[in-house]
């Protein structure tokens, strides 16, 4: 009997390689677990047949195009859309023999921090089904934490891998921009979108990253990794310099339990030999959110223009082309994409471009410099991932700004194109708390080493208490 709640991907691979279990049997076990628990959790939008063999099954966020399998990005406007091609990451998973368990729920077009913006209903947090799993990649995070997948892929634009990983008690990596292909990923904000792994351990995350990363001729913004991915083994942090942004301590809205867990993790790092010091990211904390909410919607307003009902997806018939497009988009998009299309259209408009989009790009350059300066002094930067633990479903749904505040600490490093890793640092009110480690460009191996050592020392149990 396979314990899908506990089995890591690495262990699963061991079972497959020693022929104790086939990948089809593993796939069946996760599908069975979904049949048992997903009615409550709603991590999956649809389950898939196993077509690959030899690898560990995987869950894919529904922004990832899969040939022959409906891909909706959580939106009604893509209902019934079946891609004729695989995204590069899906193709690489398939080439590694990994069967797809299912496509996971997401906020519509990955816009949100709770999956409540999914047109197909919210996912629920396996630790407490009255609460959100985070977002936008709440489906993948809930699947991994609820034992419905050993690992999965998410997409992160401003925190959509890191924040749900924190709220569900998973390990999640947002890779360095340009290391993982975006080909076949339903675009939200092209200069920020990155695909990355979610799993129960840092080693699993590193393993999955090694499978999906590297230059892709179909994505001009990708590069070859400067060094091979190493599966971490170290248990010490001797000589590792970790900077804590001074601004973290003054940030309003950080829950005391989150703060306590973060302080505990910092002490653990110190005990493992890390050198802890203060760093300074004033612009990132003051302007990161504002900058992000100009750049991301601006790009989104353009990326979402293709959904016009002409070539694919549902169409609302109307007497003229213009009315057809207007009515199709009105019926197909939910409130959050509409809000961001309007924000972005405004930010790019003649007469406003310089003051909004142009200014945000200049600020982005400053944030890149500020992070670079901090990472000259330190190997890694540490912050809490989310200011709060998982919040009740519905609590923030009517308040976009409160929702946006979920990502205040994940956003700046996304704007800087830097890799970020969430690992569980403990619990508050019985719910998982996440620690965010930010590395230098292409510094994934350093993140994996530090994450692994901390993970071992913290000894967080990734299985939700109520399911143990």
């Amino acid at each position, binding site marked *: 009997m396979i314990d899908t709640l506990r089995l890591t991907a690495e262990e699963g691979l061991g079972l497959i390689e020693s022929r104790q279990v086939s990948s089809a049997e593993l796939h069946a076990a996760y599908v069975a677990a979904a049949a048992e628990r997903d009615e409550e959790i709603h991590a999956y939008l649809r389950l898939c047949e196993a077509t690959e063999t030899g690898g560990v099954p995987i869950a894919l966020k529904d922004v990832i195009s899969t040939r022959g399998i409906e891909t909706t990005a959580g939106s009604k406007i893509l209902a019934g859309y079946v891609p004729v091609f695989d995204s590069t990451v899906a193709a690489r998973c398939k080439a590694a023999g990994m069967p797809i368990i299912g496509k996971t729920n997401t906020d519509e077009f990955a816009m949100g921090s709770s999956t409540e913006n999914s047109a197909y209903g919210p996912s629920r947090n396996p630790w407490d089904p009255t609460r959100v799993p985070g977002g936008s990649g709440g489906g993948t995070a809930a699947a991994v934490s609820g034992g419905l997948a050993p690992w999965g892929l998410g997409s992160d634009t401003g925190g959509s891998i890191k924040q749900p990983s924190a709220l569900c008690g998973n390990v999640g990596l947002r890779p360095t921009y340009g290391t993982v292909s975006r*080909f076949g990923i339903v675009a939200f904000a092209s200069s920020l979108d990155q695909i990355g792994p979610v799993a129960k351990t840092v080693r699993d995350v590193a393993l999955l990253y090694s499978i999906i990363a590297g230059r892709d001729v*179909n994505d*001009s913004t990708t590069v070859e990794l400067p060094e091979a991915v190493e599966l971490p083994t170290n248990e010490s942090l001797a000589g590792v310099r970790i900077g804590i942004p001074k601004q973290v301590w003054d940030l309003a809205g950080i829950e005391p339990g989150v703060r306590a867990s973060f302080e505990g993790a910092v002490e653990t790092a110190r005990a493992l030999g890390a050198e802890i010091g203060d760093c300074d990211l004033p612009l990132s904390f003051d302007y990161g959110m504002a900058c992000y909410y100009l750049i991301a919607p601006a790009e989104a307003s353009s990326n979402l223009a*293709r959904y016009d009902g002409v070539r694919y997806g549902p169409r609302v018939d109307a007497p003229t082309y213009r009315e057809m497009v207007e009515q199709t988009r009105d019926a197909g998009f939910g409130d959050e994409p509409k809000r961001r299309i309007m924000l972005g259209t405004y930010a790019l408009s003649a007469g406003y471009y310089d003051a909004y989009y142009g200014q945000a790009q200049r600020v982005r350059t400053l944030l890149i410099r500020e992070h670079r300066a901090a990472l000259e002094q330190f190997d890694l930067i540490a912050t809490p991932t989310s200011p709060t633990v998982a919040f009740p479903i519905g609590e923030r749904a009517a308040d976009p700004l409160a929702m946006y505040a979920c990502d205040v600490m994940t956003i700046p490093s996304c704007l800087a194109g830097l890799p970020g890793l969430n690992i569980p640092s403990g619990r508050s009110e019985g719910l998982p708390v996440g620690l965010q480690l930010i590395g230098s460009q292409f510094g994934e191996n350093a993140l994996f080493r530090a994450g692994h050592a901390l993970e071992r020392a913290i000894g967080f149990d990734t299985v939700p208490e109520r399911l143990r």
Partner: protein
Amino acid sequence: MSTTWETVVGLEIHVQLKTRTKMFCRCTAGYGAGENTQTCPVCLGFPGALPVLNRTAIEWTVKLGLALGCEIAPRAVFARKNYFYPDLPKGYQISQYDMPSCEDGSMIVPMPEGELTVGIVRAHLEEDAAKTVHMGGHSGRIGGAEYSLVDYNRGGTPLLEIVTAPDIRSSEEAKRFLLLLRQTVVELGISDAEMEKGTLRVDANVSVRPEGSDELRTRCEIKNMNSFNYIARGIEAEAARQIAIWEAGGEVRQETFDFDAGSGTLTPRRSKEEADDYRYFPEPDLVPVEPPAEMIERLRAELSEPPAVRVVRLGKELDLDRALVLVTGGLDRLFTATVAAGADPLAASNVIANNLVGAGVDPATVDAMELAKLVSARERIPRAAFDEAIGSSGDPGFSADPFLELEVVSDASELDPVIDAIIAANPGQAAAFRAGKEGLLGFFVGQVMKETGGQADPRAVSEIVRGKLLG
């Protein structure tokens, strides 16, 4: 005292590059395939599809930029031009915008009164839109159509947009500039540049001003002109329209017109309620284009003598108009070789530009030595033989020699009996000619030529006929 007006013209030229594949995907670019068969997720704008630059298109853009004396940008950036239209599958067109590949060039246009220099403001690369046909309704436009058909085969093919400075002062200058630009593009091998096929499209910005002034008054744009002659006529019609407005004390409004060559009329396009706002921003799916210095140098070294320069050179040997015809017809290399082989320049130019082109012979297949022999013998050998020789001059292994042996018959003793018989057979015409209907001379000459199988010398025949009827 009435004002003398000067026309001011700037041109925007779109050249479709004949790359094997499209601008941002691997689909075949080209004509003739069934509708929507040359498409893929990238050029249909499917979710998640990403553009990848066509290297050849970049190289050809640099090549044209160098040929036009432009600065080649060490870093060019593609932008998104956002607007909704069914021919635009992504909802935006990828186009170079504020950082184009080529800027600040120029081209000379030899004119009878001297050389005109036309500034090239920029040449930039963009992707073409799909082809739309609006069915039903009468406007041929999307508004009012019952339905529209879209062929995405053309969507995503590479287009070069070339923008000139407002340096052109007449329709004739515009026409000559376009002939030379087209020839430049064709010789670079980057486009067929055929207006009928739409691989060359020209819009003209026209304004007028009192001669001697250097102000730039409100300009209007004319579109939809599908030949160089129509462009010239369109410019003249628009200039005349504006002059009439100014002279009547009115004010020219900025407008866009379609020129209808059939009626010679300008029809304003329905003016939009609000100004276009394309919300340009840098295309985040592409990295900047940074052409390597060694590529630029290699392309620069490959450039041959520009058409305009060759027109100037040949214009000294012939007149400018003949030189322009030869160069822009792709005939000047054959001309030069034929003259070098001993032919008289004027005769060679006439034979090549008229007879050879008229016979549909590809100048590249013609042996200049043999052509030179024909040009030199053309007064001597029968007309029919000459025409036949020209017609086959492009055949492999063609020799002029068998044709040179045929002589025209100008000997009166041979022609007399033929002419007598023809006069006898046409007494009515003979009487009319005698009565003063001189035009009938051609009739008699024609009959003689027919009777002799084209071997008679027409000049000798006319003299004899005239002598016999009037003498």
